[in-house]
């Protein structure tokens, strides 16, 4: 046995092609990371001109939930409570929320996992209107959100919560927020990663300090600003 490098196979040592295929895959992967999204968007644009029907219309949302199943709430069963360090705690039905002044915020929904949906219009009540109606006490400094899925929670500082692009959203794409997208009522914190926009919102509680939300207990940043959207000085 002379050819130690290739025991068993009959014909010569041959050329090491397999490892080149492995390296080529690694190169393709790196190239895909660098230019893939641009290529995909280009293809999608070209397709939508040539054959619009071939472009998927799923809007790119992916379904994330931290629990096994989420109970469904509708106009009769849904309640939103506002409490904590406030002088006038309140409970709203869906109709009562819809009767308040409505605002629309259009912003990209960006997930930390890398997918995003561009220019999503959300419509609903400004969170600051609900906070003002409840009269936050002086010691109130943060807002904690709880959800009727029974597990999820989120939080904002009071300053963040009072921004004009933070909504208690009832509508998305001018339709009621569907259950799978967190309906009937979800939070939309436009300048932050989408995990800050709690789905299935059921409770707003003013607290004296920020309490970490669900994912933040697992290492997500508490201030989930999107790149370039941090307020100056924050």
């Amino acid at each position, binding site marked *: 046995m002379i050819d130690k490098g290739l025991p*068993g*196979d009959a014909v010569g040592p041959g050329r090491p092609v*397999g490892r080149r295929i492995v390296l080529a895959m*690694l190169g393709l992967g790196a190239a895909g990371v660098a230019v893939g999204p641009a290529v995909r968007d280009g293809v999608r644009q070209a397709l939508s001109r040539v054959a619009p029907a071939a472009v998927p219309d799923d809007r790119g949302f992916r379904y994330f*939930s931290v629990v096994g199943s989420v109970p469904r709430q509708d106009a009769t069963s849904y309640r939103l409570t506002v409490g904590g360090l406030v002088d006038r705690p309140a409970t709203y039905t869906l109709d009562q929320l819809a009767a308040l002044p409505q605002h629309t915020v259009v912003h990209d929904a960006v997930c930390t996992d890398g997918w995003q949906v561009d220019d999503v219009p959300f419509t609903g009540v400004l969170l600051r209107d609900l906070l003002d109606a409840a009269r936050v006490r002086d010691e109130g400094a943060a807002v904690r959100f709880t959800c009727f899925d029974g597990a999820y929670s989120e939080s904002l500082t009071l300053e963040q919560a009072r921004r004009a692009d933070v909504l208690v959203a009832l509508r998305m794409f001018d339709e009621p927020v569907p259950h799978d997208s967190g309906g009937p009522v979800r939070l939309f914190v436009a300048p932050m990663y989408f995990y800050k926009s709690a789905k299935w919102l059921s409770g707003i509680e003013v607290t004296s300090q920020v309490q970490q939300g669900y994912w933040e207990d697992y290492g997500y940043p508490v201030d989930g600003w999107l790149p370039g959207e941090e307020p100056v000085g924050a």
Partner: protein
Amino acid sequence: MPERVLRFSPAERAVHRATGLLFLVCLLTAVALYVAPVAQLVGRRLLVETVHEWSGLLLPVPALLGLWSGPFRADLRRLDHFAEHDRRWLASLRSSDAHRGRLAGKFNAGQKVWASWLAGAVLVMLGTGLLLWFRFALDVVPRAGVVLVHDVVAYALVVVVAGHILKAIADPEARRGMRTGAVRRSWAAREHALWLGQSSSPSALQASQAADDAA
């Protein structure tokens, strides 16, 4: 009883089984994370995500442990090296008379390309997966590109591994080789003519000697 020859050592079969199992766990958890109807049914994102991350991280480990085994290393070398008959084997894919001149060693050229592509794809999945896993520690990473590559290669893997399984379903003797470690000599002569003819692999040699003694 038909004469049988050793094809895969116990270590190689263990590597195959463990890798297949880990791949299945990766695939099922991936479906539960990203295929909307299943995600809506399963939910429990933290648990599913954790299982997916760890099964993905462990996916290359059986093959790495396999490097301790001589027969496994020898087969890796076989898969890496393409000889003249492999080039002809690939060229014959374009010919109308498909089986003419298709000669193969222990692995045919298609199996070599498949295995090399799979190794590269798993490394790409591992790399992009780790970037997604530790995305908050590494916020310079272009996540949109990373998640796109992880998605596209995942779909490609499903197709390619499905092909592997369909090929196995179509050939009971190939399956028996991976299940029991041994195949019929007549099957080996037909499918891998250049393997046993001038074999110097210790395991195959022992097996053929044992068969000769029995005869």
